[in-house]
């Protein structure tokens, strides 16, 4: 193994609805931004990892065929909603192994025209056959937490309130209007206790991340160290129930690899596809004691200006919108921007250690398709 891996460039398109837009122009826009941010040229790129969920086989080759990146090694990565950070994990591994000096991660998704309502997990599943959809899955997690720990619907609503308030300061977010607890609880029930404003919105968008070796990061004062990159896949829910052990296992491995602990993290972007997921994340990532996540949030933790860590300063999936292939790149974009001190009105003061958590799940029989945790330091 060689030296460290660094993120030297990030690029992100607005997450919105882009009727008529294809993956290629969105992806190229993000790539150009990321390479410019890294002060690198297309010719410097050794390998490209392209993350996407719904556009079908060979997307990376298809969207890069008409660009100067054609001819580079291209690897397509699909790991449900964790595809983007899964691609970053591959880039990290290639750079650490000395197989590449400059690895480009591209995450892209166009949902417009594919889903009118919620995204649908794979149909051939025991739980889907019982009538489960994705909000119902998170509702079952939420109710379990409520019964076990006394968490209330208001706690879940507070996640939406916080993240929409954060998203209001993010020009790339799709939902920038603040909401109140009353608004969230009064919005249409989807699968109780989850209401409409506790569900992330579908969006189209792309993000790109440049991962480089020590040699290529040297002298770059804006480089952020990719200190740990870890992934796990879950076991069958029938046996493990609702404790979500994989997040704990993967984050523990990531903390160890980075030489930090949960108490050292200043800022985190975590997977809040549905509001209850964020409260579970506080606990499994070690930010809160078991069962205390909702109560810690109620006491003012996790919000900008409050006791840290600040969680989802970008607005998270709930405010930023969720193009699955691009979400991981968006999380890394936000943490890199925060650690560089370039986040403007949503800057977390003194942020030097950041974390991303992405959860991919479209095989509901399993706890998770892929749980990906990155730790970044500066």
């Amino acid at each position: 193994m060689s030296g460290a891996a660094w993120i030297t460039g990030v690029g992100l398109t607005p997450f919105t609805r882009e009727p008529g837009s294809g993956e290629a122009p969105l992806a190229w826009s993000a790539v150009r931004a990321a390479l410019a941010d890294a002060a690198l040229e297309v010719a410097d790129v050794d390998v490209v990892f392209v993350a996407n969920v719904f556009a079908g086989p060979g997307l990376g080759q298809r969207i890069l065929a008409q660009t100067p990146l054609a001819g580079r090694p291209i690897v397509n990565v699909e790991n449900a909603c964790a595809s983007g950070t899964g691609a970053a994990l591959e880039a990290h591994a290639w750079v650490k192994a000395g197989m590449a000096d400059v690895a480009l991660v591209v995450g892209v998704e166009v949902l417009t025209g594919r889903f009118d309502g919620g995204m649908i997990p794979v149909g051939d599943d025991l739980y889907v056959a019982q009538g489960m959809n994705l909000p119902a899955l998170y509702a079952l997690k939420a109710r379990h937490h409520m019964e076990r720990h006394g968490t209330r619907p208001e706690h879940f609503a507070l996640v939406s309130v916080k993240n929409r308030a954060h998203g209001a300061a993010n020009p790339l977010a799709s939902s920038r209007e603040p909401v109140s607890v009353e608004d969230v609880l009064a919005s249409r029930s989807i699968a109780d206790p989850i209401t409409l404003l506790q569900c992330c919105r579908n969006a189209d968008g792309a993000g790109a991340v440049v991962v480089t070796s020590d040699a290529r990061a040297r002298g770059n004062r804006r480089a952020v160290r990719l200190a740990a990159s870890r992934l796990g896949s879950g076991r069958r829910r029938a046996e493990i129930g609702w404790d979500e052990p994989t997040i704990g296992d993967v984050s523990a491995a990531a903390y160890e690899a980075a030489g930090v602990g949960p108490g050292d993290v200043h800022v985190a972007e975590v997977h809040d596809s549905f509001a209850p997921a964020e409260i579970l994340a506080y606990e499994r990532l070690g930010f809160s004691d078991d069962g205390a996540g909702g109560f810690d949030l109620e006491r003012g933790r996790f919000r900008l200006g409050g006791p840290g860590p600040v969680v989802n300063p970008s607005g998270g999936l709930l405010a930023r919108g969720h193009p699955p292939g691009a979400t991981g790149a968006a999380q890394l974009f936000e943490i890199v921007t925060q650690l560089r001190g370039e986040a403007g009105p949503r800057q977390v003061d003194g942020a030097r250690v950041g974390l991303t958590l992405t959860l991919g799940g479209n095989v509901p029989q399993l706890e998770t398709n892929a749980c990906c945790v990155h730790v970044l330091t500066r």
Partner: protein
Amino acid sequence: MTGEGQAPAAGPVRLFECVDCGRTYVAVGAVCALCGRSTKEVTADGRARLTSWTTVSATAPGVEPYVLGWAEVDDAGLGVMGQFIADASGLRAGLAVRVIQTAGDGWPRLWLEPLDADAAR
């Protein structure tokens, strides 16, 4: 597929039990997920305890809202997801329920029913 108000009859639940380690599975179980050995079919009376539930309001077009529950099958170390043959009023953690299995389209259908109907009121 869902929410159409069927009224399945109670009967034994088919489980798959590992011939080696004894771990049991619902519906999927040609290979034991714990030790990789083969499984044999066994039946259980379907007694279970409810641990979570939700009323699914965002349903497919034309499908009425329905209640999904998660129950732990007694003595099997096994969680089961099924649709409730009852509304959600009175449901609580620990409620004794019966798992009912019917044939489905590919996967079996699993249903949950309060064991003592009065207990759910």
